[in-house]
């Protein structure tokens, strides 16, 4: 088996544009879950709102540079819409409403009724030409060493995405160390105490949900731009689960946690994917697992990994145990 090739593939995935988009989205989720203690289980819905907001704007004849703020605004508005009825209630109500809303958004977007706007299952393609027109890299050649290479096109997406991730990390760092950040952490630790100090808890929670949603919206746009297309079935609930694994793996309630978590997650995910696929090809599993089965084992491991992390090391790589929402209610 070509262990070195598998390793290089996994490394490429770890720094690739998808890892960057996950890091950005996880940063938003971390703001909601890690810092404020909001259980948003429909994070992928915010990404969908962002991606479709941008793509539909371009389809309607607008510029991509107009589409991006519109996409982000759509994701922020979704946060307002979902947060308003649920944030006064106990945490699990938000979980229930967000997980349902994200799935329903996907179903609506792929319905034939929405076809004139969203192009349903056909998806909206080639809407990000304006972005690739700015590419300073030579699309005709590869950059990198040995097998660790990216095309000029990929490199352009990678550079822009990771720059945005760094900016978002900095933004979250500044916000968390501002008075606003202290209030939302106080809400996570003890909502009643924060309320008794005269803080408007509901409004702070709503702001956190909307801000995290906006970051997810931008992440959705990045993912869509990278693929030059949006399809409804990209935005499956499993992405939300991946993001939870990323946040908890890196350390909820830390700035670097989601970013490093995304890199480590993508590395392990692809390493295992390639490993299982080649092991299956070499007949390690006999008749027990076919090719699709072997490729799906990694998804089982994501689930088991999330359970194990949460039970054994809930603070992840960087987190501090005392910073966790140990929580009661």
């Amino acid at each position, binding site marked *: 088996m070509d262990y070195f090739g598998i390793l290089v593939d996994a490394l490429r995935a770890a720094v690739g544009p998808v890892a960057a988009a996950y890091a950005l989205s996880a940063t938003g989720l971390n703001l909601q879950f890690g810092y404020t*203690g909001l*259980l948003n*289980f429909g994070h992928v819905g915010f990404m969908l709102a962002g991606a479709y907001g941008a793509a539909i704007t371009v389809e309607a004849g607008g510029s991509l540079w107009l589409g991006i703020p519109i996409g982000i605004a759509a994701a922020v508005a979704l946060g307002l819409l979902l947060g308003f*009825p649920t944030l*006064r*209630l*106990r*945490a*699990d*109500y938000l*979980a*229930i*409403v967000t*997980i*349902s*809303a994200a*799935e*329903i958004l996907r*179903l*609506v977007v792929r*319905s*034939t*009724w929405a076809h004139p706007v969203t192009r*349903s*299952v*056909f998806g909206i*393609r080639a809407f990000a*030409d304006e972005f*690739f*027109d700015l*590419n300073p890299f030579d*699309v*005709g050649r590869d950059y990198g060493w040995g097998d660790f290479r990216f*095309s000029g*096109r*990929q490199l352009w997406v990678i550079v822009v995405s990771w720059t945005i991730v760094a900016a978002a990390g900095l933004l979250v760092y500044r916000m968390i160390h501002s008075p606003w950040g202290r209030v939302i952490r106080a809400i996570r630790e003890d909502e009643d105490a924060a309320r008794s100090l005269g803080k408007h808890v509901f409004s702070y929670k709503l702001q956190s949900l909307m801000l995290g949603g906006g970051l997810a919206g931008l992440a959705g746009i990045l993912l869509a731009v990278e*693929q*030059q297309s949006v399809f409804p079935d990209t935005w499956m609930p*499993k992405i939300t*689960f991946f993001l*939870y*694994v990323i946040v908890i793996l890196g350390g909820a309630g830390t700035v670097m946690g989601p970013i490093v978590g995304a890199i480590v997650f993508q590395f392990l995910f692809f390493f295992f994917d390639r490993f299982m696929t080649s092991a299956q090809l070499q007949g390690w599993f006999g008749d027990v*697992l076919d090719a*699709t089965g072997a490729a*799906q*084992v990694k998804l*089982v491991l*994501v*689930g*088991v990994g*999330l*359970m194990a992390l*949460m*039970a054994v090391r*809930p603070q992840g790589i960087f987190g501090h145990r005392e910073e966790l*929402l*140990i*929580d*009661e*209610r």
Partner: protein
Amino acid sequence: MRRSGIGLALAATLAVVLFGSAPASAAGEDIHGTLESINGQEHTPVAGVTIVVEQDGTEIGTAVSDATGMWAVPVPAAGTYQVRLDVDTLPGDVALTVAGNDVLPNVLVRSNQQKTVRFQLGPGVASTVSRLDRFVDLVVVGLKLGAIIALCSIGLSLIFGVTGLVNFAHGEMVTLGAVLAYFFHASPLGPQWPLILAAIPAVLLGAAFGGVQELALWGPLRRHPTGLIAMLVISIGLSFAIRNVILIVFGGGPRPYLDYAVQREWEFWGISTVPKNIVIILASAAILAVVGLFLQYTKLGTAMRAVADNKDLAESSGINVNAVIFTTWTVGTGLAAAGGIFFGVSEQIQYDMGFRLLLLIFAAVVLGGLGTAFGAMVGSFIIGLAVEVSTYWVDNEFKTAIALGILVVMLLVRPQGILGSRERIG
């Protein structure tokens, strides 16, 4: 400007190489299938039926099924097509088992794929239905869905009541019941019992799995102590793991049970519906009645409600709380397994059927009042009826959205649910 133009072309080429999104022109995509009239175990080929393949309203090709019922239409490229069965060409004694299923609107053909599609045919005479009859029929279907949701949601609600955990893996307990029954009923590796017999070990194993979960996972976690939010996230992980194990073992495609797959409709009191719908409603009602009596009049049932109401008070009154929690897990997941089998009879069995149903279960449980068993029953029937009857006015694709709409309105107006108590909602 010129450079960027070349860049664009290159980028497009690269995108094609990288993502394989090129319209594959070379090789033989087609859409094909075999038309069979299915009556119980008996499959009869249906010949001479016209199939039309269209894309965005343009006709791509037609085919007529041959003596073995086979037909095939070659298509020019990968893409999504609409496949229509010309109902007028069906023989007089054969009809679609689900009215209105003559068009498959989204048949996705990948490059180089020979796509198989199925039309469900059975003995019968196609009938046109007036609007009022359809409304009554939808009420029956809604009651059936409500009954299935009720079986599944009682467990979720009671487990929340006694442990405080919103169990996101509950949907997988539903799928598990359906898949276990499929194993005992139809799998070549299993004993191939009739479905009614196969349902018994499936429900028992489902219930046992609930008990084992409590003993091996949730009980130790509670004693460890783990916060409720952490446990909620763990249940999400468990749901994801179980769903994908089922995906690996059972495969991604939907499969029907062999029994009751195709039935002739019954007509009475202006209602026309397949017998299995009536059987599901009656059987569920019986099970729900037994559960209700158990909760209301037995010692264990009372203890369950007491723990759900106030755990500390129940414990200090001498109730063995851990035994009650264990029983709740066992009964709750057993009921979910039964609900899953009914759901599988009413539709088909698929690895994510429970997860799809979970959204409706949540809506029902919140509507009725989280933590109450009777509230869950009431909420389930309201959601089931609302989801199905709404298709009388709005498009089928939006019926799940209706359930979410009800959920959101309820949270705004009366967050504790119909039968819930105020202090629970926090």
